[in-house]
């Protein structure tokens, strides 16, 4: 777990780095947008080379474990927590957990309900998905309950499109644009956010198996980039690097659209473990 979390904090996933490179080529020469993206790319190269955090906000650790429900899960939980404590001491993770009652930092990145470890029973090899999600982008995440009269969003795909574009507009540069969106249509107030975050594990170049959602992803990505919010909200052609939309069954009375905003430094990896609990392959 130590190696996995360390890499997540210090090496930006290849697909995200590639998307940033493509964005640089799209922006006007010597524009603020191009120079901003250029500094971002230089910083990505430096963090990987020096083995240091991509961003000083090393985020909140989110772990999803899929596997057979047996005793090894307890061992995994312990090794995740041990790794987090060690990496915090080493300055690869920042002290990012504060108790809201005492307002004291717990100093080791663990606390009540922290880290968040979700388990899903699956009859197959164990898969671990890990994400370090920054607080700035988390603050820009939002949930709409449709219908919404303010943006005239009804309970259909057009309404969903309006919600997503509005979320990007509201965020401006504050979520560290260009961002990546994970979206959930449906679900409840809790599952909506979790399923939205799960979408962020998808590779940027994958294709949504649902033709409707694939079309919506493509449209929203194109239109969000026409907002001209730009890198860091300073104007420019690149406001988003990707949009990934999932869905969940909803209560007939509820229609939620949940948008999880992730910064350009979207740090996530998925690995498969062997029977000894070692990393067998990176997915």
């Amino acid at each position, binding site marked *: 777990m130590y190696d996995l979390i360390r890499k997540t904090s210090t090496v930006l996933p290849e697909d995200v780095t590639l998307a940033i490179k493509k964005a640089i080529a799209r922006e006007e020469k*010597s524009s*603020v947008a191009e*120079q*901003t993206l250029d*500094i*971002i790319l*230089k*910083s*990505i190269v*430096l*963090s990987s080379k020096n083995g*240091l*955090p*991509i*961003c*000083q*906000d*090393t985020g909140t650790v989110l772990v999803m474990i899929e596997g057979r429900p047996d005793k090894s899960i307890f061992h995994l939980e312990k090794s995740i927590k041990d790794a987090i404590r060690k990496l915090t001491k*080493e*300055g*690869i*993770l*920042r*002290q990012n957990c*504060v108790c809201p009652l005492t307002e*004291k*930092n717990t*100093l080791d990145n663990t606390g009540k309900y922290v880290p968040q470890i979700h388990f899903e029973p699956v009859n197959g090899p164990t898969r671990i998905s890990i994400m370090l999600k*920054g607080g*700035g982008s988390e*603050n820009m995440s939002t949930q709409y309950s449709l219908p919404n009269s303010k*943006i*005239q969003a009804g309970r259909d*795909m*057009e309404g969903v*499109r*309006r919600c997503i*574009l509005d979320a990007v*507009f509201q965020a*401006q*540069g*504050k979520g*560290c644009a260009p961002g990546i969106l994970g979206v959930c249509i449906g679900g409840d107030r809790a599952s909506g956010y979790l399923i939205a975050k799960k979408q962020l594990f998808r590779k940027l170049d994958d294709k949504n198996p649902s033709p*409707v959602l694939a*079309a*919506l992803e493509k*449209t929203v990505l194109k*239109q969000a980039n*026409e*907002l*001209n*919010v*730009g890198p*860091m*909200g*300073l*104007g420019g052609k690149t406001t988003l690097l990707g949009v990934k939309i999932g869905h969940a069954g909803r209560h007939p009375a509820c229609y939620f659209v949940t948008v999880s905003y992730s*910064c*350009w*430094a979207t740090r996530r990896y998925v690995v498969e473990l062997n029977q000894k609990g070692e990393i067998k392959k990176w997915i």
Partner: protein
Amino acid sequence: MDIKHITSPLQQEVIKKLAVGDMVSISGRIVTGRDQIHKYLASGGNPPIDLSGLVIYHCGPVVIKEKGQWKITAAGPTTSVREEPYQAEIISKLRPGAIMGKGGMGEKTRKAMSECGCVYLHATGGAAQYLAECIVKVEGVYLEQFGQPESMWLLTIKDLPALVTMDSHGNSLHDTVLNDSSKRLEGLFSQPFSVRK
């Protein structure tokens, strides 16, 4: 694009000449301060050092101690608007030369900047390594009771790149982008989504 080289603490005549859109390269002594520091200073807490003319950097760095020396391992900006409730008062009371962060600030801060001669410098969010390399030395740390990211770190920096996005004449690039994108959003709302396009 021409780059203006400026040194913190900033002189008033330098501040007055800075305009929205200027790329700057900052050197000199700066302090970090984020949520806890701002709350503390705005509610009457004494600043541990004289802040006049200095750059206050909205940043919660990752810091480790190596052989008895502080070492910053990552130091990008944090979202500035969280300090909006406190910033104007701190500017008028303690007279910093610039506020540096990301995302820009609101109306109250903009007004205080015009009145007191202060600018907002936008650093690239998330570029923690690139920016950490501009930190030459950790001079000291104050108000450590707030925890490491929230303490006030006194740093010497060299050639840190930033963009002036709010100046001392009342201009704000953030307002311009907000208004422009608002009009564009309206335009996009008039193109309804349909799968068969």
